[in-house]
């Protein structure tokens, strides 16, 4: 990050600071998005699969082949192709999926809520359990719980997520029957509600279909816990290190000398300061879950963006793959920038 400091005094400086920051923010966003499009375009061009054959099949006559080639604009110079791709990308047009024949963006809009639902619940689990665990580990440094948090982190960084998902299915679904199997909802419930937001938990709850709601919860709990575990491993580790950092500061000693209770020192004083970097960590963890969802969705047959990408991959549907990659990349970029911005907003010292 380039650091620009607003030196001087006066009321306009703060405004100017936010203006320059906003301009910078937009510039970074624009160049990065441009880069993402360029990378996906490049990937699309080196692809050895002939996109024309993917559409017309290998038995088409040369005339048909040539016509489709021209329709796709593949006879144009590369730079011109890129310009067209860029213009289309700016309007959200990534062509049609060969597999579903729908526009890629329509497909993605249909499947994205499922991924969002999973990642949000996963992050929620990570925050609810990770932050208290991290605080406990920092307060009782070297204790059993500290070791436990360390172990959670170590395992989280080392275990293949798809394998853990399969083992979870084996244990909690096949052997213990505590949770439902793969999928998002039982077929019996899938017509009981009308998809509005495409987030099943929300739709069923708003329409009062409580049986369907419980079934959806029954289905989501295992994949969400799986993602939640990875989020928890990361969040608890970071919380621990932020809290250790804060607890060593002088203001904590001052608060203790004043005679404040330990609870108050930890929760009101130290945590409030540790919360600022934690916001960025939570945003980053949310972005990471998007990546984790690719494998998790494949394991759990969860009809989200990750499964859409892998399905398209297996069918050499490059438009869909690149569109999906771009959407995940863009979400990632925006989340990163938002976390950066939040950090600056919440912490006056960075201004």
């Amino acid at each position, binding site marked *: 990050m380039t650091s620009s400091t607003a030196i001087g005094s006066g009321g306009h400086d703060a405004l100017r600071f936010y203006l320059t920051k906003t301009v910078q923010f937009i510039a970074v966003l624009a160049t990065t998005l441009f880069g993402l499009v360029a990378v996906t375009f490049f990937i699309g061009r080196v692809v050895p699969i002939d996109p024309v054959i993917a559409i017309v099949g290998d038995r088409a006559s040369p005339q048909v082949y040539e016509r489709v080639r021209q329709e796709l604009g593949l006879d144009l110079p590369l730079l011109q192709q890129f310009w067209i791709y860029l213009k289309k990308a700016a309007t959200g047009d990534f062509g049609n999926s060969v597999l579903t024949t729908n526009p890629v963006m329509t497909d993605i809009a249909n499947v994205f809520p499922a991924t969002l639902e999973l990642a949000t619940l996963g992050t929620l689990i990570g925050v609810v359990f990770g932050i208290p665990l991290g605080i406990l580990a920092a307060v009782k440094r070297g204790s059993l719980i500290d070791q436990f948090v360390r172990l959670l982190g170590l395992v989280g960084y080392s275990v293949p997520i*798809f394998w853990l998902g399969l083992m979870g299915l084996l244990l909690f679904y096949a052997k213990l029957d505590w949770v439902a199997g793969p999928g998002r909802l039982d077929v019996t419930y899938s017509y009981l509600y009308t998809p509005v937001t495409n987030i099943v938990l929300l739709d069923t709850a708003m329409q009062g279909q409580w049986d369907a709601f419980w079934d959806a919860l029954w289905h989501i709990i295992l994949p969400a816990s799986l993602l939640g575990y990875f989020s928890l491993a990361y969040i608890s580790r970071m919380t621990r290190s932020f809290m250790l950092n804060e607890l060593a500061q002088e203001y904590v000693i001052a608060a203790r000398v004043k005679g404040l209770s330990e609870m108050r020192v930890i929760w009101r004083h130290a945590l409030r300061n540790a919360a600022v970097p934690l916001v960025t960590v939570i945003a980053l963890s949310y972005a990471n879950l998007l990546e984790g969802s690719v494998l998790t969705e494949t394991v759990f047959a969860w009809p989200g963006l990750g499964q859409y990408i892998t399905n398209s991959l297996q069918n050499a549907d490059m438009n869909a793959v690149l569109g999906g990659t771009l959407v995940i990349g863009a979400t990632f970029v925006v989340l990163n920038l938002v976390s950066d911005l939040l950090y600056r907003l919440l912490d006056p010292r960075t201004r």
Partner: protein
Amino acid sequence: MAGAPPFPQPSGLQAWLLSAEPNSRWQARLGRGYLGWRSFTKNPLAVLGLAIVILLVLVAAFADFIAPYSPIVGGDLRTERLLPPSETYWLGTDDQARDIFSRIIYGSRITLFVVILVSIIATPVGLLVGTVSGYLGGWVDTVLMRITDIFLAFPRLVLALAFVAALGPGIENAVIAIAITSWPPYARIARAETLMIRNSDFIAAVKLQGASTPRIIMGHVVPLCVSSLIVRVTLDMAGIILTAAGLGFLGLGAQPPMPEWGAMVATGRNYLIDQWWVAAMPGIAIFVVSLGFNLLGDGLRDVLDPKAAK
């Protein structure tokens, strides 16, 4: 690491290594290595990590002698398919009646191949981009760092997926894809180190002696960036293994019948409920090896880069 003598050897070699007045550059280097090794061995987890990594290398090197069966050719399809772990088949057999233990043993070669190749490709690229960008500054820095940021903006597995989709599935393409997604963090670290080194007096002295820019970068900046980069690459190896296994699991990495661990888990998925060992065993192998690299990386960080340790 330097050759370590057994501990109860008070004088002689140890004294020579720990000498405060080394007679040669070699002695000084070995002495430093010895000190590093001593502080490394104080951390039992790091030693465990090293042991796992050494075991991986040994297993890969001597797979022919260790594996009791062929990893590719199976046994009798009528009687030896999907057998549970037993004395004959330690970890059971898979759907092609192949011994899972033997396949895991041979699979270590693929894992090692991926890890070594990715680090050989990605580390120099990251090092070069980072040092050049940090040392030259100006528009070169801006352009190179923007490119780095763009690659950092993609989640690793997703970008690797897109590349493999374009290049076609296969272990070599998976390696290329992972390498393409691996270098940006290295470039970031090398740049940060370079920015600290750039303005030091010894660089000014070298410059006054008339050294060219490439010479300063290659001869004086790069060597100083290496140790923090080694730590990062080692810590990254678990991530590389997991990404490769993920690609294999999706059928985009090593192709059958290669005994790639991720692909083996994918096969086991079809028999998960009744023949759990087919999926479970290779996953344990992935987990243990990643754990080994993580522990080793943590230990190395404490020794080589104490200020990064928290």
